[in-house]
């Protein structure tokens, strides 16, 4: 066992070729989106809404990771902090996509059609909340709040070199706690606005929590992918250790179980009560051909992580962790597709370039901005990392 060089810095330079490919995929996605607006306007907006929510989830997950680590005093995560910090840099991009979404409201949401609302008692009752002006204002307010908090969280996280500093600690705690409160409210409303209102007659009180569990799961999978990537390409192997991977594995396992727990809560109560206004949500999703996707959703997001990550050795294995993380990333995309697809497509799922390209290019842009941000802020004081691994650089003799 060798002590690391205490004054060394480790830099991460994003591979130029990969960055170029990601940029090209991102730009191609924009072109396909513009083409889709003319060629297949209804189909392109489905893909757009999935991509938008996915990107928001990834960025917010970075902030949630930082806030939870700060609030729980998780010094084990110090060596990993650079990753969630960088992930939050995708939120301004997501805000841009959010502005674009305002042009697609008519294609996506039933409640924007005045003629439909005029003949519908339920939608009339909800129109005080579900209207285009309110939707737009809320979207702007959400992003303003999120960007404000994420910038503060990242700044404090980058400044806080030593978790024992009382001043930095306190500032971080207060900001994190306020962020969690703001998140609980804004993210719930955002999930109602962007996803639940696709089926404006239906509602579920578990929906926001279900989305939040999904966001947490996607986020931890993304952190895992970056952690493994950094270990493979740079000397971060000394900083992100096998123990970090194991911790990430355990969090993935618990979040996966939490996700399926909320999924089941919502499903079970609706199935058991069997009330027409509630069962409408599962009518399409539990019947062929959608039910195949519903089952695949459970397999990817719960069964695979649950079975694979149970043994300790699997969590410490880079390759296994990477594969599970990719399965979860795919599973969460499918989960979003299952939220958006049925109300807009009806009985038959349609799937082609219009649905998949927006998501792929959003992912490419996410990796692009995150890696760019990692490249500019990746220097990690090894002293920090040493402490994160449980090494104490200054032995403190106690009385």
């Amino acid at each position: 066992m060798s002590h690391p060089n205490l004054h060394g810095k480790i830099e991460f330079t994003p591979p130029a070729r990969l960055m170029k490919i990601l940029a090209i995929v991102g730009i191609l996605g924009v072109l396909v989106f513009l083409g889709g607006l003319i060629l297949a306007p209804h189909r392109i907006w489905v893909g757009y809404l999935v991509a938008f929510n996915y990107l928001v989830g990834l960025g917010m997950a970075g902030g949630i990771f930082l806030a939870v680590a700060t609030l729980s005093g998780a010094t084990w995560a110090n060596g990993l902090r650079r990753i969630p910090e960088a992930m939050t840099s995708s939120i301004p991009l997501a805000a841009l996509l959010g502005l674009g979404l305002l042009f697609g409201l008519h294609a996506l949401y039933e409640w924007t059609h005045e003629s439909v609302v005029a003949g519908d008692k339920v939608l009339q009752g909800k129109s005080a909340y579900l209207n285009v002006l309110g939707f737009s204002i809320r979207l702007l307010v959400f992003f303003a709040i999120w960007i404000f908090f994420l910038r503060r969280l990242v700044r404090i996280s980058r400044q806080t070199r030593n978790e024992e500093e009382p001043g930095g600690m306190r500032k971080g705690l207060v900001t994190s706690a306020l962020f969690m409160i703001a998140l609980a409210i804004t993210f719930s409303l955002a999930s109602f606005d962007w996803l639940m209102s696709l089926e404006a007659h239906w509602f579920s009180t578990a929906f926001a929590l279900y989305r939040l569990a999904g966001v947490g799961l996607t986020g931890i999978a993304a952190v895992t992918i970056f952690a493994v990537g950094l270990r493979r390409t740079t000397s971060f192997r000394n900083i992100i250790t096998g123990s970090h991977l194991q911790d990430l594995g355990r969090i993935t396992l618990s979040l996966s179980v939490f996700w399926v727990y909320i999924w089941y809560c919502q499903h079970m109560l609706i199935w058991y009560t069997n009330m027409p206004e509630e069962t409408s949500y599962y009518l399409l999703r539990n019947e062929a051909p959608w039910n195949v996707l519903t089952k695949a959703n459970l397999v990817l997001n719960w069964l695979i992580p649950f079975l694979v990550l149970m043994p300790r050795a699997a969590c410490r294995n880079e390759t296994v962790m990477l594969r599970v993380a990719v399965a979860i990333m795919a599973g969460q995309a499918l989960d979003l597709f299952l939220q958006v697809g049925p109300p807009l497509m009806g009985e038959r799922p349609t799937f082609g370039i219009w649905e998949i390209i927006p998501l792929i290019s959003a992912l490419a842009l996410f990796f692009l901005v995150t890696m760019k941000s990692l490249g500019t802020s990746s220097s990690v004081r090894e002293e920090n990392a040493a402490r994160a691994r449980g090494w104490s650089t200054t032995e403190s003799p106690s009385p």
Partner: protein
Amino acid sequence: MKQRPVRTEVGVFGDEHTLLAAAKDCQHRGIDIVEAHSPYPIHGIDPILGIRSSRLPYWTLVGGTLGLTLSLWFQYWSSASDYPLNVGGKPFNSLPAFIPVTFEMLILFAGLLTVAGFLLTSRLFPGRKTHPIDSRITNDRFVLIVQRKDASMTQGDIQTILQHHGVLECWSEMNE
């Protein structure tokens, strides 16, 4: 088998950090670490003591699997086969309705079997007599027992090392 009596050095520490530092130092100097006693698990002591990872989770796995299969089978048998009752027009064999009980039974069986496995493998039972090296190790003291490998190091040398790390008390013991 006849064993020569061995002399071990016992050090009592006030907290786990000093014990861990002393244990690392001793290991570094080629002194054998025989055992460490503490009121709670010490993070990082396992590799120093050469403790392999526990096999207790297998008891949990067996218990969980048992709870899962038994409760699923019992619910199927009672509500679909032996005494079918119409509940809200649902099918007799309704998996969603079985999940909560299955979940609870899985955890109950897994938990009980883990405790049982722990007690069995550590040969613990009510009324078992134990002889702790120092009764304070169940409260607020941390004990490290080391043993010198060769004659190049005296008892005093080891005690100096322990004292350097803030040992509170130390003494020698002869073990047969």
